[in-house]
């Protein structure tokens, strides 16, 4: 894994332009890191987020404010965090975590073992937690070799103060802000607009280099690029078109591994797509390469599989080429020309463009696609279209974690991911069912301003802003 991570970073770096020279190696303290994101965060609870891109942004904030028992290094290996060390029995069923002494909440109060236990217990079904001095004992109820990864990634398993946080933030009213033990403390929250975080001076893993982070929410990609160019922002989320433009202009662009699947998903109960030949004809009519080249500006990879190559290692086995002749043949077998409705999120430009592109391809195969924006709140409504363009986040550090992540979303069967043939067979079976047509694996694209030094992020896109420093800042 280590070698892969390095190789990936090398590839990422190749996609980036050379980092600006003129700054010394040793990080400097001070300054405000200005971040702009597209999501408007209306809540601090990812489970409450209507928009899951919003949930992603909330999780990134959580990572700045809260600690975990264990965290993942850039290679996806569990490393000590609030837990100093751990051991488990032969079945990996019973675990003992020795807790780190001297950790403080961001308000200066000491973190007690009881608070760690309270923060974790009851959040994962099947896990029971109890305390033995400064050792946390976790009984997983059965073999759980992946427990460390779960502790490092599950959104509910952060160490947070139970009495502060979420309720006042949801309403946007002033009140107690979340308290954690992480590298930054949230000091200002304007729902949907702005958040400010201050460096935790007493952070057990060393005070962050920047003094504060200011996050502007709800910024359009085009505006973000403009702010980056004008020096008003240091880190911005970019859509492919802006990223390509910025790259051509010599800006630094950081690309993650492909962490999203852009796909078509059929409505399971829609009569028009019950005939498998209709779905197959549509799948074989799509020119994925053109979508990747034109709409994604050559970022990402064409996808025939659910899991990207960097996670599975076998995604190349899934065909991605269009087969228009066979699509037309199938269309001929169907008889009546299918006329389908494809929906897209009206706030997602790429989804709209993809739907339009797919409609053009489908027409070549004799299938009519009517492209429609989905109504507000569409995710909680009965399906009104025969299919829709979706993005599915797949940003875990390994295949098993990714399978856990999307097992419910796509209803892909859970399998023993440690036996590669089984994982491949399960995914192959799911893709062959044509419940979903994979299109493109998309990376996360960030524009990085010239002041930003030591930017590092693991392939799956988590941010480590505590390690970032700003050029030219003085302590």
């Amino acid at each position: 894994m280590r070698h892969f991570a390095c190789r990936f970073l090398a590839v990422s770096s190749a996609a980036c332009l050379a980092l600006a020279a003129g700054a010394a190696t040793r990080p400097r303290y001070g300054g405000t890191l200005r971040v702009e994101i597209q999501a408007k965060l209306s809540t601090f609870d990812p489970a409450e987020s209507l928009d899951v891109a919003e949930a992603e942004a909330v999780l990134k904030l959580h990572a700045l404010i809260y600690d975990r028992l264990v965290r993942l290094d850039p290679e996806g290996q569990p490393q000590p965090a609030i837990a100093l060390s751990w051991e488990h029995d032969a079945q990996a069923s019973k675990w003992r975590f020795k807790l780190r002494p001297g950790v403080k909440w961001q308000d200066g109060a000491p973190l007690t073992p009881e608070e760690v236990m309270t923060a974790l217990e009851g959040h994962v079904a099947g896990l029971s937690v109890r305390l033995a001095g400064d050792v946390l004992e976790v009984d997983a109820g059965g073999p759980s070799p992946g427990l460390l990864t779960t502790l490092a990634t599950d959104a509910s398993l952060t160490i947070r103060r139970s009495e502060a946080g979420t309720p006042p933030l949801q309403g946007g009213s002033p009140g107690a802000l979340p308290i954690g033990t992480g590298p930054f403390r949230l000091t200002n929250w304007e729902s949907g607009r702005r958040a400010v975080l201050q460096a935790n001076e007493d952070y057990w893993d060393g005070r962050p280099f920047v003094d504060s982070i200011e996050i502007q929410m709800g910024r359009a990609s085009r505006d973000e690029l403009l702010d980056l160019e004008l020096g008003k922002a240091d880190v911005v989320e970019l859509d492919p078109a802006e990223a390509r433009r910025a790259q051509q202009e010599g800006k630094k662009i950081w690309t993650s591994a492909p962490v999203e699947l852009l796909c078509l998903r059929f409505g399971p109960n829609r009569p028009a797509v019950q005939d498998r030949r209709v779905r197959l004809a549509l799948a074989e009519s799509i020119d994925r390469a053109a979508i990747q080249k034109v709409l994604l500006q050559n970022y990402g990879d064409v996808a025939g599989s659910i899991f990207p190559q960097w996670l599975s290692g076998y995604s190349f086995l899934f065909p991605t080429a269009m087969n228009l002749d066979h699509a037309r043949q199938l269309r001929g077998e169907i008889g009546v020309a299918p006329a389908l409705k494809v929906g897209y999120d009206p706030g997602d430009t790429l989804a709209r463009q993809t739907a339009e592109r797919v409609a053009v391809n489908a027409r070549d195969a004799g299938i009519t696609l009517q492209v429609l924006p989905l109504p507000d709140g569409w995710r909680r409504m009965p399906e009104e279209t025969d299919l829709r363009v979706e993005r599915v986040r797949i940003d875990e550090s390994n295949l098993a974690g990714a399978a856990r992540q999307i097992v419910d979303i796509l209803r892909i069967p859970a399998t023993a991911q440690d036996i590669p043939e089984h994982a491949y067979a399960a995914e192959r079976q799911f893709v062959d069912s044509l419940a979903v047509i994979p299109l493109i694996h998309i990376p996360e694209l960030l524009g990085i301003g010239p002041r930003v030094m030591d930017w590092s992020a693991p392939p799956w896109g988590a941010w480590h802003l505590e390690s970032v420093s700003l050029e030219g800042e003085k302590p």
Partner: protein
Amino acid sequence: MRFSRRIPFSLGAPILALVLLLSATVSLTPTVAAQTSNAAAAPPGAAIQNQGAASPSPTAEEAWNEAAGALAAKILEHMTSGKTLALTVRNISSLGDDDVLKVRRALRTQLRSQKARLTTSKQAKVDVQVTLSENTEGYLWIAEIRDHSSLSALGEDAATPVVMVWVTRASPGERCPTSEPLSIRKIRIFQQSDPMLDIALLDNPTVGAAKSPAPAGAAARILVLGLDGVSLYEQAETPDTDGKSVRQWRPKQSAPLTRLRPWPRDARGRIMVRPDSLFDAYLPGTKCTGALEPVLTLECHESDEPWPLVGGEREGNSANSGAGVGPAGYFSADRNFFDGRVKLDDDGEMKMPPFLAAVIMPLNAATHAGLPTLPGRVPPGATGVPGWVLSGLDGRAQLLNSNAKPVADIGGWGSQIVGLQSGCGAGWQVLASQARDLNEADAVQAYEIVNRKPVPVSTPIEFAGPIIELWPLADGSEAIAISRNLQTEAYEAFRLSVSCGQ
């Protein structure tokens, strides 16, 4: 608004419990991988060895042979015995061409040893395409088995059997021997996977210049200061798998270091050995005193005692170890720099701008640099040091005179600088890292200061990652460089010296 989806957290818990039972993750992977390639994975501690190891290591090749055998067996399970097969191998992983050749050879050997009849593609009944792939957890070798007779009987839509094996990725840490440019001699003496702040050479390791080799029959030893303690390593000759003798560092003892306070994120430290088998470790807001005999011990206490800015063995006991060993700088306990106060040999104190590293210029260098010097007497307020070079917090270096007044700015250097008495050229040079980001490979170049300006006198010598520290060694003619290798993620310690031969 985008609608990328992730698992709803309210549903996540029960599903997670289910999947936890079914799926294995990183923790399990090494075990699984070991079924096919138990020798391929290099444990963290295995990285501690001398430079110049063979590429790839024998264990990696053994692992590949084993994995090739497993894949061959799986392939043959899908073939009727006696059928001829044609093997093609393609590589989409990070394996190099040489390694791919080795894997291909291993596959052919293993197939033949398991009674497969290999032939050319035209004559073969079965085409086997092996793809050398990889994912986050290791290599994945995948074989697609196309039986022409099945395809003709069942049609082109017949599923192609696919078999796979995991192969643990070996650490490539020892694969590229360090080249040695003409002007700066760079010798790797140690590496480890954990962060390394400083090392102290107790006896000269064999890889270094033989100035004070270990006594006959005795092994070279080093002390390594890490974030969690001090470790003593001993160099020993051990036979490798071919029976050849190789030198390796073996851990002898370690003493844990209790952090008395949170350390800065960019933690720094220095370790200094004294002649009486004692040593001092300087850490942010902390001073530790240790002993090598009879067992390695370490005692730490909160302290703002200044850190030595020069190399050399320190004399005296721990109570007065700061005396008589050259200027020492006060380190900011919650940052990564010296606060600018410098304690002098005469216990006087002077103030200069905060700095990341300081170089003390000898008289000949100060004269060469065009700094006014007053031989024979020290003016009031002067430091007794003819000149200084400071690496500042603003990314620039400064030349200071004996009164610690800045007289010139030096741009284009990195944070790490060290002065060396080489006897070459003007006799003294500054080695400076280059201005880089922590995520980039760094380089060190030698400079002489002429008329208050830096003049490069060597070609840069490249490192495989950022240089984290440059500290002078005992007599000031060599330096220790600590670097983080971006390819292997290992922390490496190098001994640097300036060679007269260009």
